[in-house]
């Protein structure tokens, strides 16, 4: 089974990390696909929350936006956005948050705000949205991002959301008690923060990907763990469920 795209193994690898016990704060795009794939395969009881206020939602197609009606229709209930951010996110009730971004550094800090100076932007990005507080209030963070030299940066022009700051101990020094990014799932490999330094370190490489390829798509010298696994290739079920989900979604959004 090698007939899959890099973004498919990225989504599937992320989905595999999720369990029935997780309460996920889901972002749009790859996180939404990964979470719903997990729900439709091995983790049917996983709890999905979208920042629009929908608690325990079970969409049959992926939402285009964070607040599609599908999310509300299939939710246990829907709360106001102030309540979502106060009682649910800040309340510490989310086990796993998902983030992506335009740019990431070796300590999993993310930039989704601006390229170039803030006051004279070269590229103005959408901004943080929920990310600054998702990054500190969820029990742990999974980041899903495709690799590339313009995304995996040696130094970020702007820090939108906190990863591991300047390394081990940064979060604690800021009084943050959650674990922060524990997994960075890319189209080429999976990184985890090193136990000693919190620097992102490759722990699993997707089938057929080389270390050189990973380095070529990363703006800092990549660290590899002492033991690097090969990511298990997507199986037929994973691929068909994911593709069905995307097909249903595409049909629904074009309607």
């Amino acid at each position, binding site marked *: 089974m090698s007939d899959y795209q890099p973004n498919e193994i990225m989504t599937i690898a992320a989905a595999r990390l999720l369990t029935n016990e997780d309460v996920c704060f889901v972002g*749009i*795009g790859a996180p939404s696909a990964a979470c719903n794939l997990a729900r439709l395969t091995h983790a049917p009881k996983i709890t999905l929350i979208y*920042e*629009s*206020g*929908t608690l325990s939602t079970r969409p049959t197609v992926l*939402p*285009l*936006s*964070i*607040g*599609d*009606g599908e*999310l*509300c*229709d299939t939710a246990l209930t*829907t709360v*106001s*956005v*102030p309540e*979502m*951010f*106060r009682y649910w*996110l*800040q309340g510490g009730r989310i086990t796993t948050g998902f983030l992506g971004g335009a740019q990431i550094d070796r300590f999993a*800090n993310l930039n989704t*705000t601006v390229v170039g100076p*803030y*006051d*004279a*932007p*070269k*590229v*103005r990005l*959408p*901004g*943080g*949205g*929920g*990310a*600054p*507080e998702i990054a*500190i*209030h969820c029990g742990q963070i999974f980041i899903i991002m495709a690799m590339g030299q313009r995304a995996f940066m040696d130094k970020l022009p*702007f*820090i*939108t*959301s*906190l990863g591991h*700051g300047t390394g081990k101990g*940064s*979060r604690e020094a*800021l*009084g*943050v008690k959650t674990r922060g990014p524990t997994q960075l799932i890319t189209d080429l490999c999976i990184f985890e923060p090193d136990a000693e330094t919190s620097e992102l370190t490759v722990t699993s490489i997707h089938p057929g990907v080389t270390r050189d390829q990973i380095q070529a798509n990363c703006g800092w010298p990549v660290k590899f763990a002492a033991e690097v696994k090969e990511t298990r290739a997507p199986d037929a079920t994973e691929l068909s469920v994911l593709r069905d989900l995307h097909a249903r979604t595409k049909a*629904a*959004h*074009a*309607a």
Partner: protein
Amino acid sequence: MAEFMSLRDAIAANLKDGDSVAMEGFTHLIPYAAGHEVIRQGQKDLTLIRMTPDIIYDQIVGMGQAKKLVFSWAGNPGVGSLHRVREEIEAGRLAIEEHSHAAMANAFEAGAANLPFAVFRGYKGVDLPKVNSNIRSVTCPYTGEVLATVPAVRPDVAIIHALKADREGNVMLEGIVGVQKEAVLAAKRSVVTVEEIVDDFGPRSANAVILPAWTVTAIVKVPGGAHPSYAQGYYKRDNAFYIAWDKIARDKAVFLKWMEDNVLSSGPESFAAHARRFAVAAE
């Protein structure tokens, strides 16, 4: 006390040049028809407040009516950039006050609660406080913890789209309710467009989300008024339009032509067709 008005009169009576205005709706119930009326009337120097500016603010900003944008996420959700907003910011022609969602949600909540500021735990280890002097802090008088603060949002005008009003002028929302109730309660004046006006809300949850008549300034019936956003139980989100907007807004001339054809030479009655096209019952 809520007054039933035409959309033209409601916007003209409540929104003036230089006002701060919050058109809210978190994906759901975004007040497009009212926004288009603002574009036709051409109020200037507006401070636009919205968590997720969405296409509605791309349109108003693109028409040159805004001097400042207060926001927390300015994109076309699931699609990409808001090209008009992005161009104005990159060109330095649009002032911004940028927050996180948590900050904005808390700021609306504090506005509704008539407080001058909100306290929350946030903005740790990030750069936004370095560029937004309205992000400050207070120290907990019990634990010594330093917490983030944001000024309350208190707009001159809130504009929202809701599902129903009854004859007394009470307004009902349901589904993803976002910060709309807070926006209306935080604002000095409010304009609420609704899908329908009913004699009575009838059987409902004892805890239904309702804005009583005496908290609302003007109510206007505009079926379909949230398109391309949606109204739960009435019509679905026009996701295809959100995708199509990317091409329309990317080029200023194309944008202006589209606005001329679809907004300036149109009226609120055109929204009813959208409602029919995306009607939930039509599925």
